[in-house]
C-alpha cells in the first residue's frame, strides 16, 4: 500500500488533489481511497487530505500517520504545524516553493535522501497555465514524475474527469509541465 | 365585499339559508346534501365553535373540489374530539401527525399529489391557534415561503383549550387563562403582546389570506371558495368562540363571534399577495363591553375601567386601520 498525505490551506484544492490522485490510481485498475481531513475549515486554514493506493481492497479507515509521500502545497505551514510527522525514512517529499530547503529553514527537519525530495515552483507554473494560484494539479504531475506510483496520463485523465473542459485542459497542461520539469532537470536546482 | 350582498328585506343573506335566494346564492350549509365532513358523534363540548367552524370550512372546500380534499390536522381539541380510537368523525381522508407540523404534512401530501398527477386533489392543513401561531409557526412560515399548494386554516379560540386553557400568542389582553390569572396589578393576560398571524401571513406575499367568523357564514364560505380557486399557499383564520375556555354559555357561541365582529375586536378582511383587497363592514357597531360581558374570562376586565378602555382602544384601532365602518366599493 502506498500512502500519500497532502498539506495545504483551504482553497488550494488539497481535497481535490487527493481525489484526483485516487481516481488516477482507479484508472490504472488499482484500489484507492481518498479522504479529506474532516472539518469545517474555511479559506486559508491548514487542511490535510489523504490518499491510499493498493493492489488489494483497502479496509483501513484511520488517518495516514506514516505517509510514503508527503505533498506540501504551502510552505508557510512549516511554522504552523508538524507537517513531517510520521514521514517514513525512505518516503518522498514534494514542496511547493521557489526557494531552497535552506532558505525555508527546514534542513534539520528533513532526514531523507536528496533524490526523494523536490521543491517545485508549483504556484508559478499554475499561474502560467491556469492563470490562478492552484498548485494541486501541478504537484500531482510532479508526484508522478518523482514516485512513479502513478502514470502522468492517468493523472491527466483523472483531472479531465474531475474538471471537464477548459479548466481541465489547463490543469493537465500545468501537471504535465511539472512532470516534464522533474523528469528532465537535475536534482541540483530543485533541491538546494 | 367578498361575496354578492343580496338585500332581501326579510333576512337578506345573513341567515344560513333563504328560500327567496336563488340556489347559487345559498350557503353550502343550507344544502340538504352538504358533505358533513365533520359528522355527528364527535366529542366536542356543547356549543363548540371550532366544530362548527371546521364543518363550515371543510364542507365548502369539499363542494368546491367535488369532494377531493385531504386534510392534515395539528394536535389539539379538534383532533382529540374527532378521532379518539375507535371512532372518527371525519368523512374525508384525514391525518394527524404532531402538534407543530401540520403545515409540513400538508406540503408533503401536496407534493405526493403533484408527483402522482393528482392535482385535482386539494390539500388543507388545519389546527388551533396554539398549533398555528406558536408551536407550528416555523412550519407554517416555511410552507408560506415555499408557496406550497396548501390551504392552512387556523381555528382561533384564543388559547390552549385542549390542555386546560393556557395562554397562547393569540390570547387577547386581559383574558383570564390558567397561566394568566386575574391577580395582581395587571390581572389576566398582558396587553400589547401576541401576534397577528394573518398580517404576518400577508407579509409572505402569498396568493390569499383572509379572516372569517362563524357568525358570518356567507362571508366565510365565500372566502373558502375564493381560497380554493387559487393555487399556492393560502391562509384563513376563523374566529371560533370556546364556551369552556371563555366561560360563556354554549348557546352564545355564534353570538359572541358576532359581537367580536360588530365591536371591531375581530376585523374581517381579505388580502392577496400582501395587499388588503377587501373588508367586511361592521353592521351594527357595539361597545366592546357587550362582547366582554358574557365571558367569565373577562369578568375582571369589565369591572376595571383601565383595562376596559384598553380593549375598546384595540377595537377602535381595528376599525380605523381596516375602515370597518366605511362603505366598501
Amino acid at each position: 500500500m502506498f500512502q500519500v498525505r497532502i498539506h495545504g490551506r483551504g482553497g488550494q484544492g488539497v481535497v481535490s488533489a487527493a481525489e484526483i490522485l485516487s481516481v488516477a490510481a482507479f484508472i490504472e485498475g488499482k484500489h484507492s481511497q481518498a479522504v479529506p481531513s474532516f472539518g469545517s475549515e474555511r479559506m486559508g486554514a491548514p487542511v490535510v487530505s489523504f490518499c491510499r493506493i493498493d493492489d488489494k481492497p483497502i479496509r483501513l479507515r484511520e488517518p495516514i500517520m506514516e505517509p510514503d509521500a508527503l505533498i506540501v502545497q504551502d510552505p508557510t505551514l512549516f511554522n504552523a504545524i508538524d507537517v513531517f510527522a510520521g514521514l517514513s525514512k525512505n518516503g518522498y517529499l514534494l514542496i511547493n516553493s521557489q526557494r531552497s530547503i535552506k532558505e525555508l529553514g527546514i534542513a534539520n527537519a528533513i532526514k531523507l535522501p536528496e533524490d526523494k525530495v523536490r521543491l517545485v515552483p508549483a504556484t508559478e507554473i499554475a499561474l502560467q497555465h491556469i492563470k490562478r494560484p492552484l498548485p494541486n494539479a501541478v504537484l500531482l504531475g510532479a508526484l508522478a514524475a518523482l514516485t512513479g506510483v502513478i502514470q502522468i496520463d492517468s493523472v491527466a485523465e483523472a483531472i479531465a474527469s474531475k474538471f471537464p473542459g477548459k479548466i481541465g485542459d489547463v490543469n493537465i497542461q500545468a501537471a504535465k509541465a511539472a512532470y516534464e520539469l522533474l523528469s528532465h532537470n537535475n536534482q541540483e536546482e530543485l533541491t538546494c | 365585499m367578498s361575496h354578492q350582498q343580496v338585500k332581501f328585506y326579510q333576512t337578506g343573506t345573513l341567515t344560513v339559508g333563504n328560500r327567496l335566494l336563488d340556489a347559487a346564492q345559498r350557503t353550502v350549509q343550507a344544502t340538504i346534501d352538504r358533505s358533513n365532513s365533520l359528522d355527528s358523534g364527535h366529542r366536542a363540548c356543547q356549543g363548540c365553535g371550532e366544530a362548527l367552524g371546521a364543518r363550515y370550512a371543510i364542507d365548502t372546500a369539499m363542494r368546491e373540489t367535488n369532494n377531493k380534499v385531504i386534510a392534515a390536522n395539528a394536535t389539539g381539541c379538534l383532533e382529540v374530539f374527532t378521532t379518539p380510537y375507535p371512532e372518527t368523525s371525519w368523512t374525508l381522508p384525514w391525518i394527524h401527525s404532531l402538534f407543530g407540523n401540520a403545515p409540513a404534512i400538508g406540503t408533503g401530501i401536496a407534493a405526493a399529489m403533484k408527483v402522482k398527477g393528482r392535482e385535482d386533489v386539494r390539500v388543507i392543513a388545519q389546527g388551533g391557534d396554539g398549533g398555528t401561531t406558536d408551536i407550528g409557526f416555523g412550519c407554517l412560515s416555511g410552507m408560506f415561503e415555499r408557496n406550497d399548494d396548501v390551504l392552512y386554516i387556523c381555528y382561533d379560540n384564543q388559547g390552549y383549550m385542549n390542555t386546560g386553557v393556557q395562554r397562547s400568542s393569540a390570547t387577547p389582553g386581559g383574558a383570564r387563562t390558567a397561566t394568566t390569572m386575574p391577580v395582581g396589578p395587571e390581572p389576566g393576560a398582558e396587553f400589547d403582546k401576541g401576534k397577528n398571524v394573518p398580517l404576518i401571513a400577508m407579509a409572505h406575499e402569498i396568493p390569499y389570506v383572509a379572516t372569517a367568523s362563524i357568525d358570518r357564514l356567507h362571508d366565510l364560505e365565500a372566502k373558502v371558495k375564493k381560497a380554493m380557486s387559487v393555487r399556492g399557499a393560502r391562509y384563513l383564520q376563523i374566529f371560533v368562540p370556546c364556551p369552556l375556555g371563555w366561560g360563556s354559555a354554549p348557546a352564545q357561541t355564534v353570538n359572541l363571534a358576532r359581537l367580536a365582529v360588530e365591536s371591531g375586536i375581530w376585523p374581517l378582511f381579505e388580502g392577496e399577495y400582501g395587499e388588503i383587497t377587501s373588508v367586511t363592514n361592521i353592521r351594527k357597531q357595539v361597545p366592546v363591553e357587550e362582547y366582554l360581558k358574557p365571558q367569565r374570562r373577562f369578568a375582571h376586565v369589565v369591572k376595571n375601567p383601565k383595562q376596559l378602555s384598553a380593549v375598546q382602544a384595540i377595537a377602535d384601532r381595528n376599525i380605523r386601520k381596516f375602515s370597518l365602518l366605511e362603505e366598501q366599493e
Partner: protein
Amino acid sequence: MKNTKPFAITLDVGSSLLNKTGSWRTERPVYVDRLPPCNETCPAGENIQEWLYHAESGDYKKAWEEIMKHNPFPAVMGRVCYHSCETACNRVHLDDAVGINSVERFLGDQALINQWKVKPGKSTGKKIMIVGAGMAGLACAYHLRLLGHEVTIFESSSKPGGMVRYGIPKYRMPNEKLNAEIYRIEDMGVKIELNTKIEDVLATKEKYGFDAVFLSIGAQNAKLINIKSDESIPSLSAIAILRGIEDDIATGLHGHVVVYGGGNTAIDVARSAIRMGAKSVKVVVRKSQEQMPAHYEEIDEALDEGVEIVPFHSISEIKKGQLILEKNFVSDSSSAKPTGQFVAMEANVVVQALGQNVDESLLDNLDELRLEDGVLGVDTHLMSAIEGVFAGGDMIPSERNVTVAIGHGKKAARSISQWLHGKFEKQSKKHEVVDYAMMNTWYYSDAPRTIRPMLDVVRRTSGFAEVVGDLDETNAAFEARRCMSCGNCFECDNCYGVCPDNAVIKLGAGKRFEFKYDYCKGCAMCATECPCGSIKMEPELI
C-alpha cells in the same frame, strides 16, 4: 380489498355515529309555532303572517286566498281598516312596522283585477236570514256560504255596504272596489233584498222558513244634542251629510263649516267639506287633539288638507249667526269641565258628529230582547237571548269599526253553523304570543318601510280622488318580505346550519326540519340563532 390498515391508529369513516352524544343533553330543543302579535290583534282574525309568507315569494293568489279564509273584503280592508296589526308589529322595535294594510289592499285589488273567485261550500240545505247588509252582515253571509248554507240578507237602504258606503267618503273608499267585493259575495249565491225594512224578525223567519237569524243593523241613528239656538245657523247631522254625499243629495255644506265632535265621522265630514269647497272647516272638540277618538292618520291628513282643530271647547249656543263656545278645563284624561269663559266663532253651518245609536224599532216585536246602554247583549257565541237569533257589528257591545264587524260576521257564521249542528265547539286554546325578546332580529336586514306615495294635498282637496296610493307588483312583495314571520318557521336554515353536531335534519322545501335527538347535545344554539323564535328549549326528564 383486504384490510391492510394498522390497528387502532387508522380508523374507518362513519365510526363516530356509534357515539350517541344525545345522552349529554339536559335540555332539548323543540320546534313550536307561536302566535304573531299581528294575528293576535286582528279583529277579523286574519292569519296575517301566513298570507304575508305567500306574498313574500310573490304568490299573490295564495296570499289572497289565505286572507279570504277569514275576511272577504281585502280591497275594503286595505283602505278603511285602522290596522291595529301594524301597531302591534314586532318590527316596530327594529325599524318600522310592516305595511300590512297596503299589502292587503294590493292583494285585494289584484283579486279584483284578475277576478279571483271563491267557491261556496257543499250545500247543507239550511237557510239563514240576515238583517242588515253592512260589513257584519255581508261577512256573515260570505262565511255561511263557505259553510254551504243558504243566505238571504234584508237591507233597508237602496245599496248594500252599510257604514262603509254611507259613513266613509269616496276619497277613502271608492265605490267600485266596495261594489266589486260585495258582488263577489252575491256571486256566491247570497240573496240581498234591498229597500226592505224588517218589522217583525221572527214572523219573517217563520214565513220564509229560515233556520237561524243574524241581526246586524249597525248603529246609524245620529246622536244629536239640543244646542240652545236662534236658528240663525243650521245644525246638521254628520251621518245624514255623509249619506247625502253617497246619494248625491245636496248636503248644505258651504261657507265656514264647523264640525262638532272628534271621532272618525267628524273628520270624514270635515275633509268632505274641504272637498266640497267650504271657505273654512273647523273641528271643535271638548278635550285635547291627542284625546280625539279619530285615527291619527286621518287627523294628520285632515290637517294637511287645511282642516283646523279647535280643542278644549264646547258649543253652548247659536246666536245671531255666531257660535258661542265655552272653554273647557281638562285636568287629566277625565271628562272636560266647563270654565264659564266664552268666545264667539264665525260659522255658516254646524255639523254634529257626536256618535250614533242603534235603531230600536227592530226590537219592537222581539219582547225578549232589550237594549242596554244602547246596545244588544249577546253571549260568547254572539247568540242573543232568543235561541237561533244571533247579532253582531255596531249593535252589540264592542268597539265600533269595520274590521270588528267583519270579525263578528265570521264568528257568527261559525256559531250559527255549529248551533245548527246541535252544539257549540269549544274555543281552541291560543298559542303563546311571540314577544320581541324571543327573537334574534340581527338576521333581519334593515329596510325602510316602503312609504305609500301620498297624492299631493292639492289633488286630494280638488275632489274625491282616492287619497292613498297603491303598491305595485314588486314593492308589494318586498314590503311583505319585511315580515319577520314572528314565531313561525320560515325555513331560513339557521338551526340546520348552526348545529355543531349535525343534529338537525332538513326535510326539504316546505317540510321544515327535525331534530336528531341521538346526537343533539342540547347546546341551544339553534334556539338562540332562530330569528323568529320558533324553537323552544324544554328540560329533559332525568
